[in-house]
């Protein structure tokens, strides 16, 4: 459900949602809880990837593990060269672990980072799972 808040039409919304710069985009869950914030311009595919990460995050935070895993995988499939792709690898693995309680997937994620996105902070975060 998209909402447009222009600073001249709805300045109160900027204060209410702590929007201090434009463009700012928020993805919120159905309870109005912020799950993703994008501040500043992004190229089209980066922007789309961020928005889809936000939707995946909504599913994750609502413990819809299978949906979250599928949505993070979809980000990775659609936008493998974007800046959020390594984060999608990480959270796809965590979602799988949450869904199955199979900890071996975390080691597989760490191994996957040895093949791709090695320089990302998400590879560093997953390194603790390495075999």
């Amino acid at each position, binding site marked *: 459900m*998209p909402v447009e808040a*222009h600073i001249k039409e709805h300045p109160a919304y900027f204060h*209410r949602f702590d929007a201090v710069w434009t463009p700012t985009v928020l993805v919120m869950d159905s309870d109005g809880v912020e799950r993703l914030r994008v501040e500043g311009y992004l190229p089209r595919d980066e922007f789309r990837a961020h928005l889809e990460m936000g939707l995946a995050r909504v599913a994750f935070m609502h413990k819809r593990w299978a949906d979250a895993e599928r949505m993070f995988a979809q980000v990775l499939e659609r936008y493998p060269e974007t800046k959020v792709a390594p984060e999608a690898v990480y959270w796809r693995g965590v979602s799988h672990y949450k869904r199955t309680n199979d900890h071996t997937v975390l080691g597989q994620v760490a191994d996957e980072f040895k093949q791709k996105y090695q320089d990302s902070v998400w590879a560093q975060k997953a390194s603790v799972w390495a075999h």
Partner: protein
Amino acid sequence: MTVQWNKDADAALAEAKATRKPLLIDFSAAPA
């Protein structure tokens, strides 16, 4: 595809809650 932008955040929040759908808010200062 045309996006149907809502300009009333409170109405959108209420609808999001009722329909269990996520919400996107785009804050802009771009000239109309």
